[in-house]
């Protein structure tokens, strides 16, 4: 059977989600953002919420997320996405509201907004992309940078006596009363991507069912910032990030 005989519309098993448009993404080759965008689009399509979803995009690499997913978007000031999402969800309780933030946005500049929105139990979902670095501005140290990890602003590695310890936002969120579902996932392999999709689906359903706030951390790569190839970055993440940021559900309030 030739390739032409197999490639027919009735044999199609996987294609780019229709919510994701044809604009070429500005992300670097191999960036985890693309996979997470795809998962969000797939989950929204499966839930049938295409016309009732409002995303809040951050400041960071994902600032242009509104160019790629054909849903309603709101652009928030740096770190303030959970505050904007709170307002949208309170005014439109029937909308699926989520924020999409990186570690610099969520764990540094917007720490207060994030913790208070989660603690109030707002029915929103926060998607937290943790690549341990400020990717967009050139790979500076972030609060989540691992001890000993070299970045543009700590070229000798993060030193705890000067820079302090990495911040585990997801662990903090799990201790808050208002959170319903707190999980840490990754998108480095096919099984991990399937699990991450289930986690996003669960978080979105929780927020629509009024169970409380949800945080889905995705441990990601920044191959440009880490100065590696995409494949080497995935391996580095498995070896160095996962021991400090172990994957799995941290809190699941049924």
């Amino acid at each position, binding site marked *: 059977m030739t390739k032409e005989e*197999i490639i027919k519309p009735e*044999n*199609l*098993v*996987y294609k780019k989600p229709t919510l994701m448009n044809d604009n*070429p993404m500005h992300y670097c080759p191999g960036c985890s953002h*693309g996979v997470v965008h795809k998962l969000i689009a797939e989950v929204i399509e499966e839930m049938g919420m295409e016309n009732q979803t409002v995303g809040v995009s951050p400041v960071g690499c994902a600032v242009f997320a509104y160019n790629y997913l054909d849903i309603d978007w709101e652009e928030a000031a740096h770190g303030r996405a959970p505050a904007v999402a709170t307002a949208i969800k309170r005014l439109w309780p029937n909308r699926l509201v989520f924020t999409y933030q990186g570690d610099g946005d969520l764990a540094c500049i917007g720490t207060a907004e994030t913790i208070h929105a989660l603690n109030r139990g707002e029915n929103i979902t926060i998607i937290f992309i943790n690549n341990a670095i400020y990717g967009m501005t050139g790979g500076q140290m972030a609060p989540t940078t691992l001890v000993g990890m070299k970045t543009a602003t700590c070229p000798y590695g993060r030193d705890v006596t000067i820079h302090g310890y990495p911040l585990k936002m997801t662990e903090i969120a799990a201790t808050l009363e208002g959170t319903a579902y707190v999980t840490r996932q990754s998108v480095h392999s*096919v099984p991990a991507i399937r699990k991450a999709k289930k986690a996003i689906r669960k978080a979105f359903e929780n927020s629509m069912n009024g169970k409380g706030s949800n945080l889905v951390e995705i441990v990601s790569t920044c191959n440009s910032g880490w100065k590696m190839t995409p494949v080497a970055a995935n391996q580095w993440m498995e070896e160095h990030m996962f021991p400090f940021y172990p994957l799995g559900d941290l809190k699941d309030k049924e």
Partner: protein
Amino acid sequence: MAKIKGAVIVDKERCKGCNLCVVACPFNVLSLTAKEVNKKGYTFAQMAVEEACTGCASCATVCPDGCISVYKVKIQ
């Protein structure tokens, strides 16, 4: 025994040649072009060993840019 055959189409102008699909493929079907580049100057993924593809969609799942469409057919 029924045999499963697959094929993929790579949107070569969208592809950035990150190599993740090549590594994710369990049957080493895909490879990056050696010299040929797309309009943006990236080498892109293509089917090198067409007969080995089973349409498992691993490549398309890991593709960050959603360039890959997967087709699968069962041969009785």
